[in-house]
């Protein structure tokens, strides 16, 4: 029994590894992506800096915390579940989804493994140059106030890593939901378009969530997308104190579990009433 579990686990790991190698082929594209993200980060910092310069009341976050928030957001942008694996979409239009159902692996976790690679491989390859720029190059070119600061403390750093792992899982759980929606809607681009707009805003990628009006905060606090950026980034900068960090991570975990169960249930339902396209 135990060896079976190990064998299963190993097959999921090899799915992740194989996809990783495919996705890391596009190096020039990755470099262009890094440059784009750096450029974007600079615009954001200049805009937020202009607002901070005219602030009449004390903003809810320090500018250092904003800088950390912006750069972490830029280097981890690819983790956001705003699109889906186009190859998986292809399976729906070509009818290849029937083969997927034949595999001796659980469909949900098989897709989860694929999605994990799809989400993390491009991001990890882009992360390193982005971080080097944000930590080392910016101070050298005379913009130390824009440089990505170190975590508030070692403990904050560790909590950030923990929270970050949950973020990746949460992101995969949401991405899979987009994929699963294609069981009902072949044109997956529709849902993707919505996610593309909604996710960056409600995760905090566009504007750090604490800067939104105070009356919106309770709503922003309880929605699942906050676990994608806001929670890990603010733990990193110490804007969320250590005492609160574990509670915040629990909330992230809760949303991840809920969305995984939801996706799992949807797949089970879809299998029953699936009509495969094509002859």
């Amino acid at each position, binding site marked *: 029994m135990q060896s079976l579990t190990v064998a299963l686990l190993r097959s999921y790991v090899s799915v992740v590894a194989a996809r990783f190698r495919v996705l890391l082929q596009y190096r020039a594209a990755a470099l*262009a992506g890094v440059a784009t993200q750096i450029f974007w980060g600079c615009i954001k910092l*200049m805009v937020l800096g202009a*607002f901070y310069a*005219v602030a009449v009341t004390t903003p809810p976050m320090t500018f250092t915390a904003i800088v950390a928030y912006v750069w972490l957001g830029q280097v981890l942008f690819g983790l956001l579940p705003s699109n889906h694996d186009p190859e998986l979409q292809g399976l729906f239009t070509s009818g290849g989804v029937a083969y997927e159902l034949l595999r001796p692996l659980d469909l949900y976790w098989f897709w989860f493994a694929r999605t994990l690679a799809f989400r993390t491989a491009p991001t990890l390859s882009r992360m390193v140059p982005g971080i080097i720029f944000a930590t080392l190059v910016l101070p050298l070119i005379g913009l130390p106030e824009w440089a990505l600061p170190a975590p508030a403390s070692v403990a904050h750093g560790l909590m950030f890593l923990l929270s970050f792992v949950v973020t990746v899982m949460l992101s995969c759980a949401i991405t899979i939901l987009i994929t699963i929606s294609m069981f009902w809607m072949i*044109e997956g681009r529709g849902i993707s*378009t919505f996610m593309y*707009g909604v996710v960056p*805003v409600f995760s905090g990628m566009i504007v750090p969530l604490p800067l939104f009006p105070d009356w*919106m905060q309770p709503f922003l606090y309880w929605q699942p997308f906050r676990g994608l950026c806001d929670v890990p980034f603010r733990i990193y900068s110490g804007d969320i104190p250590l005492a609160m960090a574990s509670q915040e991570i629990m909330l992230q975990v809760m949303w991840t579990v809920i969305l995984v169960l939801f996706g799992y249930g949807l797949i089970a339902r879809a299998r029953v009433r699936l009509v495969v396209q094509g002859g």
Partner: protein
Amino acid sequence: MIAAIQLFGRLMMIAIRGQMQYRGAFLFMVAGTFVTSMVQAIGIWALFDRFGNLGVWTVAHVAFLYGTINIVFASVDITARGFDTFGSSLIRTGQFDRFLLRPASIVILVAAREVALHKLGQLLQGIFVLTYALISLEIDWTLGRLALYVFAVSSMYAFFYAIQIVRATMSFWTIESLEILNTISHGGMEAAQYPMSIYKESFTNFFTYVIPLACVAYFPMVGVLDVPDPLGSTLFTQSLAPLAGYVFFAVCLSFWFFGVKNYQSTGS
């Protein structure tokens, strides 16, 4: 010339009718781009709500910039789709060779090849925000201001269209790193939604003298809105600035013809 315009119109109509075959998906996508642009605008509004005005720039002033730029950007996205997907759908597949054989202007054939109608959502959202700005600003629309606005909008269109042409031209050599152009197109649009005076000098200079984004957006709009400019432009320079958009377009178009001339097919 007239025949060329007619051809362009006919090809466009065919592309539009093709898209309309999938009405459900089409409406869904329009709604999607509308919501997408709307939530992004909420981000800008949130910052003004939290911090107050950026000097003389109120949320209505920025809405005026934002609405105008989004309308233009969406129009370019809709009409320049043929250039946008040029590399992936014509160069990589070798289909471009067939286009070269056709007895019509290659620019028109490529431009009218495809229409991104779903961007209508962004266009509508831009109109929505611009309407809000016009109602709250109560601009005194003299003839001169109106003329400057039209001049600026048309050159803004030429500017963003030119970037799509460059994107297509670059795909004669590479189709991998085209994302870098998003910094000027999408990044430029993002940056131009705020007054240029808030940015670092080197950044503003780059977007004035190298890539004339400020010349087609910020400077003429300062003239229309009649607000003081910390960058020191006068009404005279503001009125001339949009010319740079046309010059930029001309330069990019000649780059395109250079690319076509040196094009070697992808193979058998």
